[in-house]
């Protein structure tokens, strides 16, 4: 579903934020992306979603290159950023409707999806209010619902649990599992190693832009906990 081949992203000034990174995510995978602050997680995610251009390598989504066919790739992707800076001047429902329009979702279909997930995340009653009146968690919930509207094949999420209350975090995990059962793939970054350990069938650890470990979670961590492995890898490198 997602193939990153030798991705290198160099910022102005010459710093390599991502250095020759390669990984592959298949349908049904929940793939955790772990690394310390500034390791290159967000840059990788922004390259995958077509937000950032990159100098070397390529990214393939459903067999299509984000470089040469960005629109088709983006149609298959849903992106949830770490800090949901949404259009504050819109109401929640106006924002969701805007996203549905962009993805050309029919009126009945968008209504059903919005109702289903906003009820699940307990946001329906607030959808008529301005986004600027929302709390961080509510904005995060709205970003999640907007990501689900077009039933994407690939979810790319940057710290998606930040700001969610325990109930919403649980509901969201259930939604993620359900989406994967239906054939979608999930690629998300997190600092919460417990979540990655419990939820992800595959993980990748990034340090200073380079991938230092990746593969099946069980195989990567072996007998130690993910936390131990993460600390060891960061110390050793």
């Amino acid at each position, binding site marked *: 579903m997602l193939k990153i081949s030798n991705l290198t992203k160099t910022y102005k000034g010459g710093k390599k934020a991502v250095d020759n990174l390669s990984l592959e995510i298949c349908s049904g995978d929940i793939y955790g992306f772990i690394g310390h602050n500034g390791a290159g997680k967000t840059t990788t995610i922004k390259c995958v979603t077509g937000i950032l251009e990159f100098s070397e390598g390529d990214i393939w989504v459903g067999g299509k290159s984000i470089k040469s066919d960005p629109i088709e790739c983006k149609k298959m992707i849903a992106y949830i950023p770490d800090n949901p800076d949404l259009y504050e001047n819109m109401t929640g429902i106006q924002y969701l409707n805007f996203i549905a329009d962009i993805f050309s979702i029919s009126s009945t279909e968008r209504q059903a999806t919005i109702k289903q997930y*906003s009820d699940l995340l307990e946001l329906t009653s607030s959808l008529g209010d301005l986004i600027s009146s929302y709390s961080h968690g509510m904005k995060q919930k709205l970003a999640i619902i907007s990501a689900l509207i077009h039933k994407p094949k690939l979810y790319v999420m940057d710290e998606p649990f930040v700001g969610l209350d325990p109930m919403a975090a649980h509901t969201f995990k259930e939604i993620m599992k359900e989406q994967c059962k239906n054939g979608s793939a999930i690629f998300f970054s997190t600092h919460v190693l417990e979540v990655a350990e419990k939820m992800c069938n595959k993980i990748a650890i990034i340090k200073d832009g380079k991938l230092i470990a990746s593969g099946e979670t069980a195989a990567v961590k072996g007998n130690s906990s993910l936390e131990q492995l993460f600390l060891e890898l960061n110390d050793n490198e």
Partner: protein
Amino acid sequence: MNNLFTLIKANILNSWGINKVIKSKARGEKIKAGLLGIVIVYAFCIVTFTMFMINYPLGQVLEKLNALELLISSSILSTTLFALMMSIYKIPSYLFSFKDYDLLMSLPLKPSAVLASKMIFIYLSNLLVTIVVGIPPLIIYGMKTSGGVLYYTFVAITTLFIPLIPISIGAFFAYFLGRVSSKFRSTNLVMLIGSFILFISIMVASTTVGQINTVQVQNSIPTVTALNDILFWTKLYIGALKNNNVLYLIAFVLVSMIFFGVFIVVFSKGFKSINSKLSEKYKASNYKMKRLTVSTPLKALYIKELKFYFSSYIYVLNTSFSVIMMTIFSIGIAVFGKDAVSKVLEIPMAETYISPIITLVFIFCIGFTSTTAASISLEGKSLWIIKALPVKIESILWSKILVNLTLTVPALIINIAIVALAFKMDAVTILAIFVVSLLYCLLSPILGILINLYFPKLEWTTQVVVVKQSASVLLAILAAFVIISIPVLLFVLLKLENVNLFLGAFSIILLISNVILIKILNTTGVKKFKEL
């Protein structure tokens, strides 16, 4: 006091992008900053030169009338009105609902220190304008009266204090509007209507003052004296400079400082509460799912842009004012006749040249309605949304251009209809004005968005930094001036007789320019957007 300096420094670093120039290792950034610096210095030189050119003949007339001190009046009244207008424009965005409000209020700072830092920042930007607008008439006065070192020392001291009272008055109006609008659901609308009324009132007042620069100087003396009586502190200023009077100088400085200080003390008491009220958003939390309308991606992007435009007080105020002025101009011609409008605006309206002059006024107003010059920058931290959407970049850019066209094209049609009826124009003339203006309606936003793509400013704490002070907006205004000046110069130099032929030739140049700019937009523009 230390906190105040720290806050002012933070404001300057944050808003003027100094760090970006100093710290950036990229050569392109430094070149961009250098070019912008040259443009700003050039603009300041042009304004200063223009002020000299306006005030020198005025000085000659006043010398004959033995009323040279009116040059000092002209200086203080023009800087006061200018600073007042600028303050009404800027202050609401600086003092209310500013982005760093939560951050600053969470710090151990007195609200008065936060308020003072914001006001001093406004003062600094006004001071530059005061120097450019106010100093030329004073230098001419100095030349005519052989003013010595003492006179110029007095000029330097008083200049530093001139903006204090106008910005305090501007802030008072903004405070009053803020208080009223915080009680309404549509705070922006109330602020906008209030600001437009105030702004138009000041414009009307300034056209009266503007007559001191004409041959009817003598008739204007009572008006100027009356204004000096109302704005009582200006009399202290005139007294200080006219006779190099130290007592008047001290009185002017003290009055200005007391005015500013009292405003800070009084306003700081309500500063926190009014900002808290304005930050409280209307919440109904009673939404029930209903049928949702479906739009095409381009329409959805356009609606999103339009909603954003009308939600931003400073954006609307800064870009739609020219459209309103265009309509006032046309209605003025229809109601009062061309001679009255020509006299007020000081533009020649000879019967033969009526169509190019009207076209010029229209395209001048359209040029100042460039919403696109700030539209990319205003995406700010939400830029990721449009960048992640599966839509062509061209559609994103055109949705922003369409918002500009929504403002200008209907206004243009209405205004052409008004002037066509007023002057009983023939079909060819109407068509000529319409085609030229319409082509310029298209050219202006395309140019604006291209400039913004080259000079984006995505990190900002208040929209006013993008809408009023960003490089791209300044360059778009400069570009509008250049585009308007070239045909005017050609028309004057070539002494053309056939105005419709001239408008036809101008429209062909505009058409070719539009085709080239669209091509650039679809290639370089798209590339630049990807790089953001």
